[in-house]
């Protein structure tokens, strides 16, 4: 989840890809992880070109969103003096607006502004100006940027007509589009971060974002509200359906389920179990799995929450800005 720690195995797995039949896989390193596109039932050359376009998009996003790029939008924000503003692009603005919403929803358990807290930034969505109200702002989109990239990659692949696809960033942020022909969904697994071979759950998903956060031995996550390391949680997963036809489009902003799921898993590592349960209980379509610390490695049992049911997403493309 931290952008300076390579995270190549995020706890989500694709089960038996070889059994899925006619499947193409493309990989690309970016954002300190490996992005992959799986395209089912597609022409190999055409799918390679589409994947290349998707990876070019990820590279562009990294240039705008990474705090490790000295001339990214986020770096410019991180160098603001109190009262100063930076003009940012669409990607940075959307990520910050999503981040602020999730900050509110989680009582600050998800916070992209390390140290000072997100309220130290004023976000003007009309002018794309971000203003720092205090000193020492340090924004890190590590907990949301990969999910956001996955959302945009999925939109691009659909635009190319590659509807039967699965996209992920380091298996920590993933999005299943339509399933391969003859499958009901993409066969996905959740596995124990302490023991990857131990599969905790098997899922079948389509039109759904799935995100994972976890700690491995020696790692820790800080609670942004207290600045102290979180204890008692090994991993959290969140599944969120892509907004369906019944969801009204959002005020010029993208509805980005993988970005939201990405942020929620970070929050669910920090929130208490009952707090996570409460948030799930009022979020239609949301599913979460928590893995508490076990008495000994590899013994913890998953806790599973589901939000209220929503009408199944029939054709998500109708409401999103799927066109260019």
């Amino acid at each position, binding site marked *: 989840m931290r952008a300076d720690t390579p995270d190549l195995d995020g706890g989500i797995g694709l089960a038996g890809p070889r059994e899925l039949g006619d499947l193409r896989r493309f990989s690309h390193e970016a954002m300190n992880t490996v992005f992959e596109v799986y395209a089912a039932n597609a022409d190999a050359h055409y799918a390679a070109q589409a994947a290349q*376009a998707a990876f070019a998009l990820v590279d562009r996003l990294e*240039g705008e969103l990474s705090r490790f790029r*000295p001339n990214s939008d986020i770096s410019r924000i991180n160098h603001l003096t109190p009262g100063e503003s930076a003009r940012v*692009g*669409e990607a940075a603005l959307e990520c910050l607006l999503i981040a602020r919403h999730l900050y509110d929803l989680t009582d600050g358990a998800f916070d992209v502004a390390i140290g000072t807290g997100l309220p130290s930034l004023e976000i003007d969505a009309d002018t794309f100006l971000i203003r720092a109200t205090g000193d020492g702002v340090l924004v890190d989109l590590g907990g949301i940027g990969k999910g956001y990239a996955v959302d945009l990659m999925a939109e691009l692949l659909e635009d190319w007509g590659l509807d039967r696809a699965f996209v992920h960033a380091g298996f920590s942020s993933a999005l299943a589009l339509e399933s391969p022909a003859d499958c009901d969904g993409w066969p996905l697994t959740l596995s124990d971060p302490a023991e990857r071979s131990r599969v905790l759950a098997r899922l079948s998903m389509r039109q759904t974002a799935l995100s994972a956060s976890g700690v491995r031995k020696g790692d820790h996550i800080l609670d942004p509200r207290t600045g102290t390391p979180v204890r008692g949680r090994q991993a959290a997963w969140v599944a969120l359906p892509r907004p369906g036809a019944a969801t009204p489009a959002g005020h010029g902003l993208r509805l980005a389920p993988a970005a939201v799921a990405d942020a929620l898993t970070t929050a669910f590592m920090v929130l208490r179990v009952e707090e996570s349960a*409460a948030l799930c209980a009022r979020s239609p379509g949301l599913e979460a799995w928590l893995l508490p610390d076990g008495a000994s490695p590899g013994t913890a049992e998953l806790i599973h929450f589901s939000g209220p049911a929503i009408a199944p997403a029939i054709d998500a493309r109708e409401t999103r800005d799927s066109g260019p």
Partner: protein
Amino acid sequence: MADEDDKRKGEIPTAPGAPPKLGRRDLLMGLSTVPALGLFGYAWSRQQQYRRGRAAAAAATPAAAADLQEINVALLGAGAQGQVLMEAMLRIPGVRFRAVCDIWTEYNLRRVVNTLKRFKQEPNGYADYREMLDKEKELDAVIVATPDFWHAQHTSAALKAGKHVYCEKEMSNTLEGARSMVLAQRETGKLLQIGHQRRSNPRYLHCYHKLLGEAKLLGRIVTVNGQWNRAVAPDLGAPDRYAIPEATLKQYGFKDMHQFRNWRWYKGLGGGPIVDLGSHQIDIYNWFLGAPPSGVMASGGLLYHDPKTHEWHDTVMVVYDYDTPAGPAKAYYQTQTTNGSQGYYESFMGDQGTLIISESELNYAGQLYRDPNAPAWDDWIQKRYVSAPKEQEAKEQSESGAVADVRESVAPDQHTVPVSLRDPYHQPHLQNFFDAIRGKAALNCPAEIGYESAVSVLKVNDAIDAKCRLPFKPEDFKV
């Protein structure tokens, strides 16, 4: 093209005000105020919090540069590079997009117009540049980012319509084209900036003016080395559903969709990697050496890619001769597209030091090595022209008593260039163009300089064919 945007803006639910800051109790009680908007609530409540915050802190912000003369621009060519320029321009205050023109109306044009609308800009979309120039009377400037073989026609037409022009490099794929652009600029008296954006990059400017000009840190530069290596990549494709009708492609000089997307590889349209990539850096050779080259020899070929879809050389190695004001120099340059080893950089080697520089903020962002026998740089370090040296392992070893190996020379001190860019790479060069329009700056890369670079670079492909050294005469660089 408006329908997409309307759809996004449609059906805005009544936002019940900004979600108030929640206390721990609210969370445990169940976040009762938020779920009406749900997890995607940001999409509807996006401005509530900001407006409330601004109202509370009423007097705070300095007024945005209200007296800035707004410049009306059109983007001609809305593909990958046009979008890079658009992104940079969106971060520059005082730029108003009035029009966008691209023949790929269903993809590039729609995408860019939709993006601009989200930035509260209201550009008109065009497929044909003549129609755009006829109808858009308010334009001050046109940004040309079309394929190279269109640059001359597009630039000259815009200049003759009374607009200032920023035209991407390479200025043209032919010398005739490039020359006609210089002449059109002179005839109209309008500004013409060529998109060699390193000429406005603060790190390059610092190196040119302070390190080479004032401090002369490298001494006499005798050799130069540079490269842009890229890993193998598949040809660019396009979503099937947005294919451009064949008649339109033909009308604008493209055989098919593949050629439209990969024009850089085709003779008569682009110039291959030596022109796409080399042009940026060979322009810096000329600039830093203070002269255009006096001769060139080159070897190149299509060693790897499919000749059915790639006409230009995928591998090129060049040696230039220079007669610089300080004396003769030689410069090597290579570009290849089968292995990205060490990416791109330029290395200037003088008798007193070495500068390795690139546009990238990540790699080769300005390293300096002082020759052990050169005068000390202490004053320049104090003036913050260069950073303090990084301790060299070899020195530490010799100080700790290890025997120095006389067969190897002492490692020179390594310094860095303490200047970096906080903005998108093309932003300073565009800013320089807009400043020039406002009469507040001189262009950093006017037509004549772009022409010198075009002459230097286009000749490489001739030299490859000729298989021998081709001389340049001073008058080759003049129009």
